């Protein structure tokens, strides 16, 4: 029996953030499930919803804000599983700027990523009542590049970091944890759901397709579980898949450990409460360009994870 | 494609005497090679029009050798360029070999020696001379033979592989003459071809040209500033005056006959004709003032 093909589009370059999939691939979990999985790495200009709309993938990894926004734009993405329970997004500030609480952010220069990561930020600022359009009494926003140099070079008071990645770059740059002040979005109550798996709604009407995805999700979860248990080995597997040869072992191993803290251990099924919270944050967006304007309907399904349970 | 080439093929570089052409001796009886009627050309420039040619009437019969002489800037080059369909007359009529100038050009009826050598700097002398042959599709072997022959004719044999900038001014001019002769056109338009040559070479080339003209059925339009040269070579000398360029005299030189030894230039008839041309020229200058 020929293996069923599944193409997965990642959100970013191969790193421990996606270790579960690479481990499942390397350990043969996909093959055991009768799948032939192709993992397409992402990059700064790869928008997974675009790829899936163009037929380039069956499943994509995306953050929920971006996925819901795409859904409103006419790409009917549906969350089929949510491996990441918690958000790793943080705002990291230099302690020597005197920032201690979110209220101190007023009038500061903040670095924000924009590839979908800005929505929780905007929601947070709205919650704090800080304007982001540069008007007095608000904050100055910079579109941050891929790294944390603005913080190190004092071009910004705070920058966005992921708990599993950029934060450690700051540490590597010679900062001690006590020289930094960190605001986790999770703690601020503005965390949106991060890496989830999405597929196209019309295709989900096809039972066979759902069954195929169910196998895929189950195998991936197995991969994630293994990765969480064996972070060093998982990191090595990721490194083998990094064609650029630029990643370092130290960094990936650390990342894997941090990622493990965010994972959902209950089998990847989306918790509707988390979903509702994310939607609420996005609707509260409070900027001139709200992320989504109305409550999405049918944006998630347990059909795949349920099928998996059978 | 290669009518001219094919035509030329029949005449190997060593020109055998062509078929007898006695019938063509009398001027302006045979269908004219050039027939201009009321030809005018005005250049429009930023500061007003320049009347380069005005109301020029001229008929040239096959086998004629017509020289043009006139003050600098009187329109000689312009007239030749009109015949060659390189300028568009702004008035009057012009036929070349019975058809319009453009048709004649497309038929490759003529060869043109420009006032400046106009050699392509990226080609050696030999390849510059071979250029028209290449374009007319003459086979390589024959091309080589002809180039050698004509470079010899203009005494440039040893310079075949030099590039134009390695030649003196006169040598460049001679190369451009060889280039026009080598495909053996029936009609030759030559714009001051011998201007940069010393007397001896000039005499030599005059004689060569005359011989070529006599032996083949060529018609030649020839611009020169040398009155003796004009009289010596021509069946008729056309004297022009400037701005607006027009014909003020046509001097018939057939009286000198077709066979013209160099010594003929001391004959009284020759001197008389030269004097008449000179007077025309002087009169032309008077117009200018």
């Amino acid at each position, binding site marked *: 029996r020929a293996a069923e093909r599944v193409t997965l589009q990642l959100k970013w370059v191969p790193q421990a953030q996606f270790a579960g999939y690479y481990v499942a691939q390397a350990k043969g979990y996909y093959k055991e499930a009768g799948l032939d999985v192709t993992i397409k790495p992402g990059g700064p200009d790869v*928008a997974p919803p675009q790829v899936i709309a163009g037929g380039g993938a069956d499943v994509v990894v995306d953050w929920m804000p971006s996925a819901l926004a795409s859904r409103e734009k006419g790409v009917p993405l549906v969350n089929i599983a949510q491996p990441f329970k918690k958000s790793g997004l943080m705002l990291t500030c230099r302690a020597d700027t005197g920032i201690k609480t979110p209220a101190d952010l007023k009038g500061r220069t903040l670095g924000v990523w924009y590839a979908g990561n800005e929505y929780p930020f905007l929601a947070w600022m709205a919650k704090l009542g800080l304007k982001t359009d540069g008007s007095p009494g608000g904050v100055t926003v910079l579109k941050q590049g891929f790294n944390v140099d603005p913080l190190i070079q004092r071009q910004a008071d705070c920058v966005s970091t992921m708990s599993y990645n950029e934060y450690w770059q700051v540490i590597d740059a010679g900062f001690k944890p006590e020289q930094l002040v960190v605001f986790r979005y999770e703690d601020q109550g503005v965390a949106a759901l991060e890496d989830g798996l999405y597929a196209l709604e019309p295709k989900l009407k096809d039972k066979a397709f759902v069954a195929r995805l169910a196998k895929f999700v189950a195998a991936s979860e197995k991969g994630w579980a293994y990765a969480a248990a064996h972070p060093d080995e998982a990191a090595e597997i990721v490194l083998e898949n990094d064609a650029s040869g630029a990643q370092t072992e130290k960094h990936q191993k650390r990342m894997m450990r941090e990622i493990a803290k965010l994972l959902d251990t209950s089998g990847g099924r989306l918790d509707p409460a988390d979903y509702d919270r994310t939607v609420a944050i996005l609707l509260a967006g409070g900027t001139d360009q709200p992320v989504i304007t109305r409550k999405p309907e049918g944006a998630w399904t347990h059909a795949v994870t349920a099928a998996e349970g059978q | 494609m290669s009518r001219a080439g094919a035509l030329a093929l029949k005449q190997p570089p060593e020109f055998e005497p062509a078929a007898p052409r006695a019938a063509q001796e009398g001027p302006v009886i045979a269908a004219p090679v050039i027939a201009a009627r009321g030809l005018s050309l005005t250049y429009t420039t930023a500061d007003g029009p320049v009347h380069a040619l005005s109301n020029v009437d001229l008929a040239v019969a096959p086998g004629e050798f017509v020289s043009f002489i006139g003050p600098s800037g009187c329109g000689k080059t312009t007239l030749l360029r009109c015949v060659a369909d390189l300028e568009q007359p702004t008035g009057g009529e012009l036929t070349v070999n019975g058809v319009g100038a453009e048709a004649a050009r497309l038929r490759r009826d003529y060869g043109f020696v420009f006032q400046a050598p106009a050699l392509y700097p990226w080609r050696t002398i030999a390849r510059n001379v071979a250029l028209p042959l290449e374009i007319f599709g003459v086979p390589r072997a024959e091309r080589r033979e002809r180039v050698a022959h004509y470079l010899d004719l203009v005494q440039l044999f040893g310079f075949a592989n030099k590039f134009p900038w390695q030649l003196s001014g006169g040598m460049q001019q001679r190369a451009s003459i060889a280039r026009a002769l080598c495909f053996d056109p029936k009609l030759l338009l030559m714009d001051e071809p011998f201007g940069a040559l010393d007397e001896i070479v000039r005499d030599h080339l005059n004689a060569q040209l005359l011989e070529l003209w006599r032996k083949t059925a060529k018609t030649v339009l020839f611009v020169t500033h040398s009155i003796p040269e004009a009289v010596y070579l021509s069946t008729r000398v056309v004297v022009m005056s400037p701005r607006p360029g027009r014909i003020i005299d046509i001097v018939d030189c057939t009286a000198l006959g077709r066979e013209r030894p160099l010594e003929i230039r001391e004959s009284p008839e020759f001197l008389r004709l030269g004097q008449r041309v000179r007077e025309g020229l002087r009169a032309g200058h008077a117009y200018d003032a």
Partner: protein
Amino acid sequence: MGVVLALLAGWYLAALFGNWNGAADALARAGAIPDAEKIAAATMAQERPVVPAPHQVVSELWRSIVGMPLGSKRSLLTHAWVTLSATLMGFAIGSLLGIALAVAIVHLRSVEASLMPWIVASQTVPILAVAPIIIVALGAAGLTGLLPKAVIAAYLCFFPVTVGMVKGLNAPDRIQRDLMRTYSASRGQILARLRWPAALPYLFASLKIAVAASLVGTIVAELPTGAQAGLGARLLAGSYYGQTIQIWAALFAAAALSALLVQGIGLAEAATARALGARPAGRVPRSAR
């Protein structure tokens, strides 16, 4: 040599000043009392400097070129080769396209009128914005690997060639064109024998720019596909992980690659010029220097 030394010295100075604040900062954070000497030493050895010191870059280059086996993913040479092959392919496609467009523009007025504004407009479309679309579209059509990258490289490099060649193909002056007219040469013949050789200086200048642009295009195209092979992926990864030294090493590899390519075209240019008898720069006027 002197120039290189001066540049190196300048670079060290830049590293010193560029990293000064950062180093002072880091030392202060580490609790040391920052005296000038310590800071100066620290500027040369930072892990993520503003300006890495030359020896840091060199040692990184050494590590990733010599220190890695050829064909390893960590060898810079492997990535350079990946980029080079796409660059060359894109350059070939782009320059041929550029030349073809220029030839069409020079010969067909309707092409110039209808196409040129759109070609210009196409060049103002930010490549990084359309690169993913192109890659996705070509990927959907089953084309992956070298070709999509080459297509983007070609997109960036055909334009300088077109602009330069339109100028160059129109560069022959009037008398050179007139000569071809007198031969009623076909467009193809004029192209091959006049326009093309006259355009060569323009062509080579354009090709140098094009090859550099092609390299940039390839690197840009290597970004959206994420961490795959190539110098672009290397740059991206370096940038993503804030590894300045690695970025610089990749930059140097890219720059060296393009310098080599440009140099190669320069050699071809010199050889062509020699073959076409270009006048050597000549005795350099002493006083004019």
